[in-house]
């Protein structure tokens, strides 16, 4: 009944982080259907390699696998994407927002669109930090980067996000003045 023990251990240590896995995939891939497929693939892969996981941070271990599956998926599907973190952010496309929308919905939508416009490496680091609440050390583990790089990438990601949000609100103000 070794297999049964293994599966029970997997369900107890790894499966609780399914939400974190899906959320990361959803933001890296920018699509829910793709995120479901890749999350499932990543979880099955994690199960197959569960023997190599001894103890420690199961969430970081799983997110490492999820992240990798996501980038492999992007490459396979020829989503050339902004693999480079240095790609310039284009100005946000102006989409009409119905005036009737509640202000909180409006802000959320604005932030969502701004986040989706960022290059993948900026999206992932903001999602890990702001939505998942990962420490710098955990982010370093998940993204396989030194902590110094994590810090500078996070600073640049936040700066670009503020530029996009600022640009959008500046345009909006300009429109109101007309």
């Amino acid at each position: 009944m070794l297999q049964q023990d293994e599966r029970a251990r997997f369900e107890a240590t790894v499966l609780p982080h399914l939400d974190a896995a899906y959320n990361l995939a959803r933001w890296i891939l920018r699509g829910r259907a793709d995120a479901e497929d890749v999350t499932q693939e990543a979880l099955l892969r994690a199960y197959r390699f569960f023997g190599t996981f001894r103890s420690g941070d199961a969430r970081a271990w799983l997110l490492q696998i999820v992240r990798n599956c996501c980038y492999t998926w992007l490459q396979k599907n020829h989503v050339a994407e902004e693999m480079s973190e240095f790609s310039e952010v284009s100005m946000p496309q102006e989409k009409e927002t119905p005036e009737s929308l509640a202000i909180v919905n409006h802000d959320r939508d604005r932030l969502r669109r701004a986040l989706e416009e960022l290059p993948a490496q900026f999206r992932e680091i903001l999602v890990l930090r702001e939505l998942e609440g990962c420490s710098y050390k955990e982010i370093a583990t998940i993204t396989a980067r030194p902590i110094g790089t994590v810090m500078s990438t996070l600073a640049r990601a936040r700066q670009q996000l503020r530029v996009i949000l600022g640009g959008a609100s500046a345009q909006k103000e300009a429109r109101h003045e007309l």
Partner: protein
Amino acid sequence: MSCELSDTRLHAYLDGELDAAGAAEFERHLETCADCQAHLAAEEKLREAFANSQLYERAPQRLRGKIRAALPQADSSPASFEADSTSTAGAGYWRWLAVAAILLLALAVGIGWRQLDRANRNAYEPTLAAAVVDAHLRSMQPGHLADVVSTDQHTVKPWFVGKLNFAPPVPDFANDGFPLIGGRLDVLDGRTVAALVYGRRKHIMNVFVAKAQPQESWSGSGEVQGYHWLAWENGAFSFCAVSDVSPADLNQLKQLFLAP
């Protein structure tokens, strides 16, 4: 934002990543630095926006169910199917019938996979492809092909002991037209791997063997500069064969490796 601290120290402070002394030091700096005050206020506003955003998306319930249902299949050993108590409840006869049905399903999934694999023939990891072809070309330089030259697998296999943190399989397929020529250590993507050298008629084939890693899957096939490569995994090990032979020859070698 011209203050040099505003790029990293300020973020570490915002994220609670500074120790007590570092935080106190930064707070002292903050009292006199208008740049950092303004920047910190902007970052706090952004953080607040995230906190109120409800952008975190939870996994749909059906995904949880799908993964639970698929879990035993993730391990191809039939023993693991026994763990799936929902499908094997009942008398022994039904139990075996269920196991047979699941095995059949697994087979069907396997065939589907293979077809998917074929559809993705050109879908590969460019870095792996480039690295193995480079390594193959390097090995063709005079004197670089093999560190241990032997057609005897019992000479080549022990040679790797102590040089790698895993014991690679070293089969000889001379009877099938792929004689073992030797082996050497190589480095792919910063990882030390075993390189097995096989002959195929007048051609040389390199088979790179690495310990399988959860974060890195070797799969797919393709062509780079006239060299074909084919990657696969068998659970414990990742393999990538590369040569100027035909893809059919590569595939035949792969099947020999996978055969029990």
